[in-house]
């Protein structure tokens, strides 16, 4: 109920507004920003042995790429960042699983085409979000901390230490898709499931305008992000 059916995008916009004083914002807002920051990607570094990586390797590879993209954000420009992120996110994230979880039970009423369209829209929107939002670097460090196995996969803890200010916790929920580990959800501050927040947002759109409406909305959002 705290996160009732409202779009996540304004949160990202709020983060954007606060980006100028990234490390001065309250530590409660920064997880949101950092979460967004984490999705900024580095140039393609796709390893041929992607399927053999451990959950920690998946996460640390993504983190490394992310930092690298942030550091060269200005040179890459939006299109460059998008391309770099697309490569690493495609091999690290289970977009199909994320979309299914964010959609909920309605997923089972959808046709294969509708599902494919939704997964694609979700993927494009996610990548566009990070490509738009993460275009700066101010000396942040990322480090893996703990690991736990709650039953839904492996939760890989990460700590972000900014140049100054409090360090922030993150959790990557990594699960197996076939034989490969993929990120399925991200826990802000180690406790807030991003997909749970998305689910509330998607649910109201789906009930109003169906899968097509959601695809359209995600595409529009991605387009708007590209233009900023």
């Amino acid at each position, binding site marked *: 109920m705290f996160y009732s059916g409202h779009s996540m995008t304004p*949160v990202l916009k709020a983060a954007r507004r606060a980006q100028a004083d990234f490390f001065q914002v309250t530590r409660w807002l920064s997880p949101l920003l950092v979460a967004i920051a984490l999705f900024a990607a580095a140039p393609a570094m796709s390893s041929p042995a992607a399927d053999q990586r451990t959950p920690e390797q998946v996460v640390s590879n993504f983190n490394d790429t992310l930092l690298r993209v942030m550091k060269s954000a200005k040179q890459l420009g939006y299109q460059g960042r998008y391309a770099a992120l697309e490569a690493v996110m495609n091999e690290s994230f289970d977009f199909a699983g994320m979309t299914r979880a964010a959609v909920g*039970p309605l997923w089972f009423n959808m046709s294969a085409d509708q599902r494919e369209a939704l997964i694609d829209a979700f993927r494009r929107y996610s990548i566009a979000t990070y490509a738009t939002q993460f275009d700066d670097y101010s000396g942040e460090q990322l480090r893996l901390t703990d690991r736990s196995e709650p039953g839904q*996969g492996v939760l890989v803890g990460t700590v972000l230490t900014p140049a100054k200010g409090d360090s922030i916790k993150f959790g990557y929920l990594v699960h197996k898709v076939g034989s490969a580990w993929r990120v399925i959800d991200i826990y802000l501050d180690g406790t807030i499931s991003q997909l749970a927040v998305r689910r509330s947002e998607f649910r109201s759109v789906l009930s109003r305008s169906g899968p097509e409406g959601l695809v359209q909305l995600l595409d529009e959002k991605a387009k708007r992000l590209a233009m900023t």
Partner: protein
Amino acid sequence: MWARFIVDVVERCRRGAIWVAPLLLLVSAGVGVFAAGRLTIDANVANLLSADLPWQQQEAHYENLFPGTVDTLVVVVDGATPEHAETAVTALASRLTAQPDLFQSVQQPGSDPFFRKNGLLFLDLPELSELSEQLIQAQPMIGGLAADPSLRGLFNALQIALLGVRHGDIDPASLSQAITAIGAAINSVITGAEHPMSWSEILTGRTPRPEELRRFIVTKPVLDFSDIQPGARATEAVRTAARELGLTPEHGLRVRITGSVPLNDDELASVEEGAALSISLSVALVVLFLFIALRAVRLIFIVLVTLAAGFACTAAFAAVAVGTLNVISVAFVVMFVGIAVDFAIQFTVRYRAERHRAPDEITALRVTAGRIGAPLSLAATTTALGFLSFTPTDFRGVAELGLIAAGGMVIAAILTFTLLPALLTLVKPSPELAPVGFQWAAPIDRWMVKHRKLMVAVAVCLAAICAASLPWVRFDFNPLHLKDPNRESMATLLDLMNDPTANPYTADVLAPSPDAASALAEKLAALPQVERATNIDSFVPDDQDQKLAIIADLNFFLGPVLNASPARPPPDAAELRQSTSALLEALRDVIAKHGPDGGRGDLEKALAAAAAGDDALWTRLERALIPGITAELAQLRAALSAEHVERATLPPDLVREWVAPDGESRIEVMPRGDVRDNAVLADFRSAVLGVAPQATGLAITVQASADTISQALLVAGVTAAVTISIVLLVALRRIRDAFLVLAPLVLAALLTLATGVVLDLPLNFANVITLPLLLGIGVAFDIYFVTRSREGLSDVLQSAAARAVTFSALTTIGAFGTLALSHHRGTAEMGILLVIALGYALFTTVAFLPPLLAFSSKHPNSRL
């Protein structure tokens, strides 16, 4: 011949008065003491009807297989929140379990770990899916609290939410409920009260359903049948435990007691409660009417002593004949006083009349005995027969009462012919200077004789009108309608009847095996009169695959946070102050933008006050808010571990509630509709019996007992009518006289029933006693009048007999009528109906018997 015998007995007692009176009083006192030591009371209402009845045996068989369901004391706990109710009921149940001397068993329905774990599977699919979405929405809050189950975790989670509001991501209204609840909780801790708050409500945003706020403890108390309230000790133990545990309305909890045991206890208590007033008023009225009738303190003394002796002897007879009184036969006390006083009054009033005419006491007594001996014996015989008419029926409670009362009639008659004359001789009342009858009634007598045809026509018309109303005579079989609705046990039960899951009016059906029960339950559930048919397979949820999929989905979001161990050490006071001021800051930002509504202003005030308070306040806040969170998270964790349920994997205790060791399985059938409506229950019963003739359970047995009682009434009515008619024929030797005795009585009965229809006073288990009583007393009245007329006199109303009948009726009305004051509805209605019936008996006797008699009288007036 009989009259001569009586005269002889009275004469002997007069002569030997000096030893007859003390001897009889001594014997009476002796047997009275014997009775006091021997007579016991069985307060078990189940024993009122014969145990040999097929439906009683079905019930006994059922109770034998499933002993947990009878003689129960049910504790109903209503909490302001589901958590409060749950915590309270668990604490209370463990207290009661620790007292095995008072409680044979203590059960908490639905509190089995099985339900804790698989509870979500019992929700409907749409309901579960909705709940699941709401919990997913609350994931951020749940995640924050699970990682840091402390005030700090709570305040931080709230602060994140408020940041979302400030940035327009979150609708401020969606937080109102939580903010209001948390603000109120903090405020109540600061002010020293404990305002309950529901974490499940805050986390799911869903108002708990009434049944979630209500928990039950079903106990089987150890009963002490030597106490008039056999469950009183157990009830008291529950109250004490509730008080000691602080389960009071101030703490948001309401503990009430109901169940068959407290219902019976309360019923008996309510019978007892009005009793003191009723008895004293009754005694006062009896003495008053006796005084008006007898006009002499000595005579009243004699009558009362005779009554007391008769009472002692009757009690002794009861001790020998039945040994144990039941809740109905206890009424013999009132019955005896009411009827025995009639004999004494008839005798003494007649004695006064003869004393006025006769030269001396000896002659007066002899004439009195000669005149009153036969009719009084006849009245005693017919009254006794009226009471004995219940003996062949299955209505054991009244049959025993009838036996005792019949014995009492014989005893009262014997004492009236022995002790009374002896006492009259010893005490020597003053001579009578004036005639004893109603002198003023002479014109009425004449008028009635003159207009006898009119009077008889009026009587016939009245009878016809009343007979026409007979189809509307109702018998209310529902014993609960007799109880005081303001008593806790009854008020609680009425409240529960609104709750379709707790309604006590169920049918219980046995089937030879769980499979058979399942099949039969399906058939029963298909009946339109049936709301639900529960059996062991009802605990195997439907659509489990889909439900488990929803739970797995929910677990995806909540599992990772719920199953992680709290990451941070408990906060110290400094940290709490820090997170409070951070929350306060976020809250003030939101208030600046959205205003103080939705509980925000109150929370702001409460937080500011808390921030200004001392460190001890934090400890109290933690204690008030955090255990609820921990409990709710634990419940959620358990519920997410739901697994596929099959009959074979159900917990054994649950299975035992529905399947007996020999495999016999029960089905609990709930009626559809308002069970307080007898028509609904009647329809339900016939529908269920149509499918399952072996059905028992309260909905069936209350009606079966009503049938048994109606049948008993019919049998008793016919038996009484036949035997009384035969006795009257034999004694009076004239069909016309026998008819004259019975006719006013029939009219009185018809008038009584018709009045019941008009006043909406249905017949019920308690007041049906009126009918045999009416027969017994009414017959006596008419006999006195008819025999008076056979003496060749048409001055009936002026006679001593009229005076005796009037005051005898008034005395009995006085004795019984005060029952109307009883707190027990059944007893009160019995009192009202008795007053009506006896009033009519007096009225028909006085108003219609004289004109009827005039037709057959040899008096010159009748030939006018």
